């Protein structure tokens, strides 16, 4: 980007709250059901129906607010956002306008080793609309109202980001946080976590913001980065060629990697917001806030710090292990059960286990090796029953069976041989068979040592204790 321009980015992220039922009715929120099988009379906006607030949605909003150090409004109200669209059954969306439940907060992000604080303007509760499907209906559109009424928490950031990279870092941080808090499953393919980006540019040093465009339909971290970068360039080019940026909504096309203006959106909608007369104001007492605070899980930042301190982990390991609550829990369980040094546990989890999980496209919570069995493996490596190399073999067996590490070592005869007598005997045999190489070593060819280590290991089928082998070899070769 031309250094005379500065990009200004704000993100509006809609998170579907993981409540069992909808925000204003008892209909289920489970994803993937047959169309219109999870739409009760309230979801359908039938004549005479009334909304009843789902308390769990409120709790989850408060949890989020506390986790981003935000003000929780002691008193907030629901407002009707009025517009017509077939997937909006009542002709209005129940949302929050003037008094949202969560006020100003912040999220700290890391970009290229630097920490930046991104402000959150507000977060509010609202109901999701249904889905409009335009294919397979012969020129008509199909409306599925299963999603209508699912609780959303709309999180609005301050326009604090200055690059697509920062925007992605913020989005990732938020994604991790809501999953950590267990208020949202963060599943972007299923639409649980949706991002709109507001992008504008201004000459560096100018205080005023430029006109912004809103980009919708970006449902992955990769596309967010591409879409924002594309939009920044588009705006700069437009202005440099004498044009003006129009305040509009643009859709991101991931195939063509470009943003397009949405048709027929010339006038801004007047949503005619007014407080919803069917719902009472939401009062959040100090007691409730204290209750929620007590139940807040340890947040990623705190956990990472604790792992570094308590477990003496380096930054890289700590980051990986705290990237998900499940992985962090797994790690701690393994440490406790194996009674081993934390670094060896960390290495084996971030190394062998993570690689295997990635290859199989599994999450830690679906790991075929539970923490108990994995702890068994780490313990045997740490106490020299097996070498690290054999450990990898045992790992394979663990992955493909339900046997414990001990059973596998036993069955497969993988126990490391530490019996010095046995090792000596084998070394003697090897040395006797390779007198020429032995002499080369004694004459100063250090590389030959490795040759002998290899030969011994081979003869012992990898089960030799490397430390013992080295020790005895050194003595025998001197």
């Amino acid at each position, binding site marked *: 980007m031309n250094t005379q321009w500065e990009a200004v980015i704000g993100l509006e992220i809609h998170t579907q709250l993981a409540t069992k039922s909808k925000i204003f009715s008892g209909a289920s929120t489970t994803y993937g059901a047959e169309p219109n099988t999870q739409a009760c*009379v309230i979801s*359908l*906006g*039938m*004549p*005479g*129906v*009334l*909304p*009843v*607030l789902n308390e769990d949605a409120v709790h989850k909003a408060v949890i989020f607010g506390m986790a981003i150090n935000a003000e929780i409004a002691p008193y907030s109200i629901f407002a*009707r956002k*009025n517009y*017509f669209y*077939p997937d909006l*059954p*009542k*002709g*209005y969306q129940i949302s929050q306008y003037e008094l949202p439940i969560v006020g100003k907060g912040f999220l700290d992000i890391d970009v290229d080793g630097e920490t930046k604080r991104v402000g959150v303007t507000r977060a509010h509760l609202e109901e999701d609309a249904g889905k409009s499907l335009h294919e397979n209906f012969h020129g008509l559109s199909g*409306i599925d109202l299963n999603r209508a009424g699912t609780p959303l928490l709309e999180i609005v950031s301050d326009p604090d980001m200055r690059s697509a990279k920062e925007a992605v870092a913020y989005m990732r941080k938020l994604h991790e946080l809501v999953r950590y808090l267990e208020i949202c499953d963060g599943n972007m393919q299923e639409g649980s976590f949706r991002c709109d980006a507001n992008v504008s540019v201004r000459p560096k040093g100018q205080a005023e913001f430029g006109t912004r465009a809103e980009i919708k339909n970006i449902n992955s971290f990769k596309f967010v980065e591409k879409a924002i970068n594309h939009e920044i360039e588009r705006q700069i080019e437009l202005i440099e060629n004498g044009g003006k940026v129009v305040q509009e909504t643009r859709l991101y096309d991931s195939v063509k990697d470009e943003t397009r203006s949405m048709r027929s959106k010339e006038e801004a909608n*007047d949503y*005619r*917001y*007014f407080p919803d*007369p*069917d*719902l*009472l104001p939401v009062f959040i007492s100090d007691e409730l806030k204290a209750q929620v605070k007590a139940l807040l899980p340890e947040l990623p930042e705190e956990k990472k710090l604790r792992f570094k301190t308590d477990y003496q982990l380096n930054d890289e390991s700590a980051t990986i292990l705290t990237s998900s609550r499940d992985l962090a829990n797994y790690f701690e369980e393994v440490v406790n059960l194996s009674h081993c040094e934390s670094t060896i546990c960390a290495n084996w989890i971030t190394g062998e286990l993570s690689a295997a999980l990635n290859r199989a496209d599994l999450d830690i919570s679906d790991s075929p090796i539970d923490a108990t069995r994995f702890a068994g493996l780490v313990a045997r490596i740490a106490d020299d029953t097996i070498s690290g190399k054999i450990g990898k073999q045992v790992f394979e067996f663990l992955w493909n069976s339900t046997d414990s590490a001990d059973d596998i070592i036993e069955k497969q005869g993988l126990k490391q041989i530490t019996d010095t007598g046995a090792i000596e005997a084998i070394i003697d045999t090897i040395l006797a068979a390779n007198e020429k190489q032995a002499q080369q070593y004694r004459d100063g060819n250090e590389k030959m040592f490795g040759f002998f280590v290899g030969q011994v290991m081979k003869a012992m089928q990898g089960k030799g204790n490397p430390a013992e082998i080295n020790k005895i070899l050194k003595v025998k070769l001197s």
Partner: protein
Amino acid sequence: MQNKTITQLAEGLRAKAFTSVELTQHFLNRISQHADLNAYITVTADQALQAAQLADVRIASGNAELLTGIPMAHKDIFCTRDVKTTCGSKMLDNFIAPYNATVVEKLNAAGAVNLGKLNMDEFAMGSSNETSFYGAVKNPWNKNAVAGGSSGGSAAAVAAQLAVCVTGTDTGGSIRQPAAFCGVSGIKPTYGRVSRFGMIAYASSLDQGGSMARSAQDCAILLQSMAGFDAKDSTSVDVPVPDYCVDLDKPLAGLKIGLPQEFFTADLNADMAKTLDAAIEEYKKLGADIKEISMPNLKYAIPAYYVIASAECSSNLSRYDGVRFGYRCENPADLNDLYTRSRGEAFGKEVKRRILMGTYALSAGYYDAYYLKAQQVRRLISEDFKQALNEVDVIFSPVTPTPAFNIGEKLANPIEMYLADIYTIAINLAGLPAMSIPAGFIGGLPVGLQLIGNYFDEARLLNVAHAYQQVTNWHTQTPSL
């Protein structure tokens, strides 16, 4: 039989003087005989007789309540499962409700027999029952006159004895005004007393369901079964329902009745003033103390109401879009066409008028001056009432400026129609309970008196109304049909 009170009918049923089936059939016959009044939109004869049979079994087993086996009817604004529910509109002419309103469930549980769905002004918007898609309801006392609205069918059915008691709804006077025009008793309870779940919404912060019958006592019995907290209605209030009948005969000695000077001005129709003066005299004889009070902000009630009610209705009626239920235009060309023609063809003039007014009042640049301002004024009016009800126990006022006007007389002048709501409308803004009971006749047409009580003080209101009905017989008059 149609002259008997609920209590008398309940006794008769228990004593097996007649069965609920016979009683029900009697009313069904009357309904057919007087179909020209156009009080009913739908008559559910088969279902009613079935319900009557079940009621007879229940009565025989000794498990009956007062309302068991009593033929009544619902204003067509209450959703009744598997029965057409039209709200008086072409928009819902094809709508078979998939569920019961809470009020309907409660009355079904009490064993009441539902005769059918009563005619009303379209979507409850109107003061004469002339805006109904199904045609005007005729006033049983004079078929050239309106029955009042929006619960015109309800009031006419009671007056012509086409049901023992009925449900109605009241947003700006829609129970009280038709009750006055038709010479029957009606009560609009405190906002939040009766569940709005399944009661098709017009103006959410003003709507309230209530009962109408030929006496305050019968209103009390019906209200008893209608009232109560409903978890499905967030605006429903969790306050216990007292026994509305036990204190009906409490003496009125020492009762303080307030007369708002703003309502008893020189403008009041002379005959109306005379009728009400006579009623006040009756109350004095019953031992009440009459006191003049002042409520200076009452004059803003009509504009405040019409801004708020229209605004809320404009949003509440957005769901009628031809997509999921209700009227859909033929061969829509595109989405916009679907919306404009479905709504354009199915909504009547008054409904459209109020939707447009409401949309305007909420629109950007106008919200503060209209909607917000109206809500602030509403608060002032509520405060006036609270003050007044600190000084007196009930407030006494006219219900309407005149008796029923003729069909067609005011339809061309909506503003004139709105201005006639002057006595009833402020009560809904404050959410207070109020009753209308017959107080006399002017030119052969009934007129009523209004009693306004404090929040959740329905028992007292009914007592005060009942007391008047013990010493007068306006309420026992019946039209010659």
